[in-house]
């Protein structure tokens, strides 16, 4: 366990028992001509040393925006509300400059696309050394040596020769290793990885995840793993948070969430991934499309697509409720869901004939994103309503 006293900086209060990173009621809104885009709403989580937290969600669920808010990397027009505390120190409201001492030194980030997150006109070693020199008053030579060391740590062969090369001379997987090296060179306590393996092939993804877990064990840093891949989450994290429509809809230990999901969206998401057990059967996708963040449906944001939807779901959005030890869900009907055997069957329907309206229509009238023609199959909703 690392403690606050290990930190050389005096701006951090020592002896605090606060969690490493504590996010409370984080909301991010972007005002646009079409109305406010409510990208993140009321997201809270705590992170302790050595934790690996997974944040899963589809595109537009607010997972990347919340991580950018923590890093203070959002554009100026973003309205960030709530509190982000790092070892008790408030980060929200700091200017770009005031955030600088925290970035990389305490909280660092691994971006999705290694093609664009490295500067093509500087050598890899130069970029790594620059990151190191931003927080350490050392000679260029010493920083270069540190860069080579970091490259070796992430498993790049011949690190001294490779450090003098430019990003285009590296393959995708190697480039992502460089980005990871950059994230760990200042020995941060929190690493936020935003879809670190999405752009990579599976065999390379396995290498990168392996490297990240090894580094995590060696440095005892906490990792926030943002991904849309449920498989990556299953193999890597101990806690998972499922995001939908800008907010956390379920959160808990990874085994509980995968085995006893208490939110219909999680059930649908799990049923959408083909696995050996689903062979020869139809997958159970979620009907419709994710909500528009400008015009959210009334009540629960998942209600227009939910097979268990009831009156109350359209009326107000539920709070996160305790559904087990450390397991919370944002659903009015989780208790009912818990009694359903094979909950994935709730999502079964005929693929041919169910008619979907265009996305724009769904965005304009969020509560009616689906329309079912009478002539062809019906949603399981009807059956369930009885």
């Amino acid at each position, binding site marked *: 366990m690392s403690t606050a006293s290990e930190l050389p900086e005096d701006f951090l209060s020592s002896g605090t028992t606060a969690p490493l990173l504590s996010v409370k009621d984080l909301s991010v809104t972007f005002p646009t001509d079409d109305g406010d885009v409510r990208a993140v709403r009321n997201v809270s989580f705590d992170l302790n040393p050595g934790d690996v937290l997974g944040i899963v969600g*589809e*595109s537009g669920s607010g997972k990347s925006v919340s991580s950018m808010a923590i890093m203070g990397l959002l554009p100026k027009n973003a309205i960030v509300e709530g509190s982000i505390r790092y070892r008790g120190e408030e980060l929200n409201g700091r200017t770009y400059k005031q955030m600088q001492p925290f970035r990389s030194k305490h909280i660092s980030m691994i971006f999705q696309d290694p093609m664009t997150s490295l500067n093509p006109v500087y050598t890899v070693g130069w970029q790594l050394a620059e990151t190191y020199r931003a927080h350490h008053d050392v000679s260029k030579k010493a920083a270069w040596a540190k860069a080579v060391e970091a490259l070796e740590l992430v498993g790049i062969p011949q690190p001294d020769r490779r450090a003098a090369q430019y990003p285009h001379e590296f*393959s995708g*997987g*190697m480039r992502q290793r460089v980005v990871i090296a950059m994230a760990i060179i200042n020995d941060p306590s929190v690493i936020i990885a935003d879809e670190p393996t999405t752009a990579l*092939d*599976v*065999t*390379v*993804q*396995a*290498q990168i*995840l*392996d490297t990240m877990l090894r580094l995590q064990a060696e440095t005892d840093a906490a990792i926030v793993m943002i991904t*849309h*891949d*449920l*498989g*990556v*989450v*299953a*193999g890597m994290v101990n806690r998972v948070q499922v995001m939908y429509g800008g907010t956390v809809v379920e959160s808990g230990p*990874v*085994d509980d969430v*995968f085995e006893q999901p208490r939110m219909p969206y999680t059930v*649908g*998401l*799990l*049923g*959408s*991934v*083909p*696995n*050996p057990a*689903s*062979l020869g059967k*139809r*997958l*159970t*996708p*979620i*009907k419709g*499309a*994710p909500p528009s963040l400008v015009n959210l449906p009334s009540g629960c944001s998942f209600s227009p697509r939910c097979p268990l939807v009831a009156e109350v779901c359209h009326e107000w959005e539920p709070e996160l409720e305790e559904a087990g030890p450390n397991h919370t869900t944002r659903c009015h009907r989780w208790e009912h869901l818990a009694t359903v055997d094979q909950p994935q069957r709730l999502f079964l329907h*005929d*693929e*041919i*004939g*169910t*008619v*979907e*309206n*265009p*996305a*724009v*229509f*769904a965005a304009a009238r969020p509560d009616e994103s689906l*329309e079912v*023609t009478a002539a*062809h199959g019906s949603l399981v909703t009807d059956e369930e309503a009885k």
Partner: protein
Amino acid sequence: MTAPLLEVIDLVKEFPVRGKGIIPRNVGTVQAVSGVSFTLHPGETLGLVGESGCGKSTTGRAILQLHKPTSGSVRFEGRELTTMSTKQLRPLRKDIQIVFQDPYASLNPKWQVNDIIAEPLQIHGAEGPRGAVQRRVDELLELVGLNPEHRNRYPHEFSGGQRQRIGIARALALNPRFMVLDEPVSALDVSVQAGVVNLLEELQERLGLAYLFVAHDLSVVRHISDRVAVMYLGKIIEMGERETIYNRPMHPYTQALLSAVPMPDPKQERKRQRIVLTGDVPSPVNPPSGCRFRTRCWKAQDICAVEEPRLERRGGPDGTLSACHFAEERQVV
């Protein structure tokens, strides 16, 4: 056994690499596809998997003659496609269609959905009374789960999954018998992806289509395919029935690939042993001699550098076809 719908024999596609300068000279060749052979029967799905750059998409396009193959033969119902002119190919295009990967790039943004789907009908001179084309478009929209009332909307008004459905409707317009699906779901979110996969399966059952399903996502391929072919650097290195490939893979690359796929099940994930390959895929401009996988293979011996292993049945009559000197069954999933 019925006659195969599609026969691909020793298909080769090479792209010249041009040097710099005023008069560009060929300085090398990208060996994208180097001798791929397989057959496909009516109503069957063959999954073609591999990592980026292994030549799987090029194979799909070379079959359609969108890339003219360098050598080899592609026979559709016994007719040789590679020697046909564009004009001779045209009537055959009704039977062979393709769905592209990126639903954002494959639909013309200036056209209404109606025109997009009607275009193949018009090109191939749809017969019948006026209004027949319109009725067919509506029928197709409904078939892929879109509301026919929205035929006058533009592609940007639809979400990714819906656009992919429009692409599928366009491909289905002429009642094809064979479709190349080039990564049809990889650009989509998981929950939407499953809907498109289900749709493709239902369409196959209803219309008796044969699919060549090109994808890098092994779980999706396992779900949809009858047979699976694994490609590495332009060659099929293992091919067989779906269950045999996934349960008893023989080739070390297939084993590594399968073991690397993350499974959405925490318990299994922790139990699993992962084969982590070292290094990267070599350049297709200058592939390794002998077996192309040998540079990353933990079983590689001297013979692998000298002699290229043939794709043949190894390890019993119910095994897979595999191209490895040291093929051996191993359970990885």
